[in-house]
């Protein structure tokens, strides 16, 4: 019976692998692009508006948005909720660093999921033109600003720690030393990306 079970075609492996892959390509790449575009605000509102205009003039923008952002992020998010649901949580009993980060990966994933829905609703689907003024008006509300800070920190942690996990899932980092070094590197990536994101948010609060 056990043998028959093993031989039965099982697609969970494929879904899980697609989940880790989509988290990096294209969702992770989009996060990097998004943080980069937002950081142009550090050079002033005009620079940000210019960067947004450059994206707005891309050919087939709706197609790119749908196929390379909307579909993969929806898949990653919905399957990710399932992963978070079927995971066990025992960091209370086993408070090893990695186990705590395992729990945080799932918590930040759920936070990011909720954050992205609200974020899209108030920006992309708000009916307002994507300009500095629109974002400035939003983050002038302290509650919204702090909500954005939490979202940015959660998303960048989830991405950086997810990279560490991705490297193991795909068999890239095999040895304990390789995994330890990658853990440090990805945490530096987290700090840098979170720093860039929060700095941009602060810049958006300054009047034009």
């Amino acid at each position, binding site marked *: 019976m056990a043998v028959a079970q*093993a031989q039965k075609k*099982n697609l969970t492996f494929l879904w899980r692998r697609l989940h880790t892959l989509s988290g990096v390509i294209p969702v992770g790449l989009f996060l990097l692009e998004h943080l980069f575009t937002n950081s142009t605000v550090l050079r002033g509102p005009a620079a940000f508006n210019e960067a947004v205009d450059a994206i707005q003039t891309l050919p087939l923008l709706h197609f790119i948005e749908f196929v390379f952002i909307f579909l993969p992020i929806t898949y990653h998010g919905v399957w990710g909720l399932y992963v978070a649901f079927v995971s066990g949580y*025992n960091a209370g009993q086993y408070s090893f660093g990695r186990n705590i980060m395992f729990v945080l990966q799932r918590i930040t994933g759920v936070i990011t999921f909720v954050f992205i829905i609200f974020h899209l609703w108030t920006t992309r689907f708000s009916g307002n033109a994507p300009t500095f003024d629109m974002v400035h008006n939003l983050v002038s509300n302290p509650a919204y600003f702090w909500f954005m800070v939490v979202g940015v920190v959660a998303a960048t942690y989830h991405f950086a720690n997810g990279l560490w996990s991705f490297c193991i*899932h795909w*068999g890239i980092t*095999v040895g304990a030393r390789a995994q330890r070094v990658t853990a440090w590197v990805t945490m530096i990536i987290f700090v840098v990306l979170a720093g860039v994101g929060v700095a941009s948010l602060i810049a958006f609060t300054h009047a034009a």
Partner: protein
Amino acid sequence: MSVSNEAVATATRTVHLIIERQKDPSSAPYKQEFVVPYRPGMNVIACLMEIQRNPKDKDGNPVAPVTWEMNCLEEICGACTMVINGRPRQACSTLVDKLEQPITVRPMRTFPVVRDLVVDRSRMFDALKRVKAWVPIDGTYDLGPGPRMSARDQQTAYELSRCFTCGACVEACPNVNDKSSFIGPFAISQARLFNMHPTGAMNKEDRLEALMGEGGIQECGNAQNCVQVCPKGIPLTTSIAAMNRQVTYHALGAWLRK
């Protein structure tokens, strides 16, 4: 003078245990406290034996003696694995002197509990069967000597072969739970052991297919508790990553060859 004082101190020193018990597989667990006389160098098994000799709880009420499993008493068989002070470990090699008191003892609840500290670890043996953790050499005639194995591979294989299916990694793994069918870290490591054996490698695709099946390697979430609790220090997380690599190559290769 000092000798008699020491003798008195030893005689009056006690060990306080809080044991989570269960009458049968379907009944509710309950806690019972015991106080047993201390002996130098005693392990948790010695405490359980003391309770068996004199089955009375802390207040002196007679109770059914605590049931547990044991065989080798030298951390080689894995039968006496239980959760002691929050960590899955072997009761034989867990010394009272190194534990904080009261000592809490409970069964590994990731497995079905048979009675008290006795659990049914059949799922581990099913998992080993699933990943074909053996080298098939049976034939109708003498097949002759197999291929040689490098000394370096022997070293790695020796490390992996020290697994005694005690269940500590399965107990500590958050992804082995009611909602998942994950076979557990040890089985992945055993698949690696037999895939690196020159004769075992002749069946490596079968093991990789099994690892990609239901409850396979994809259910690992990299919490890495397994490597922390393994009493033999087996590099389980390295095994998992190494098998992830094999499975990735196998899956992509198989798909491109079809």
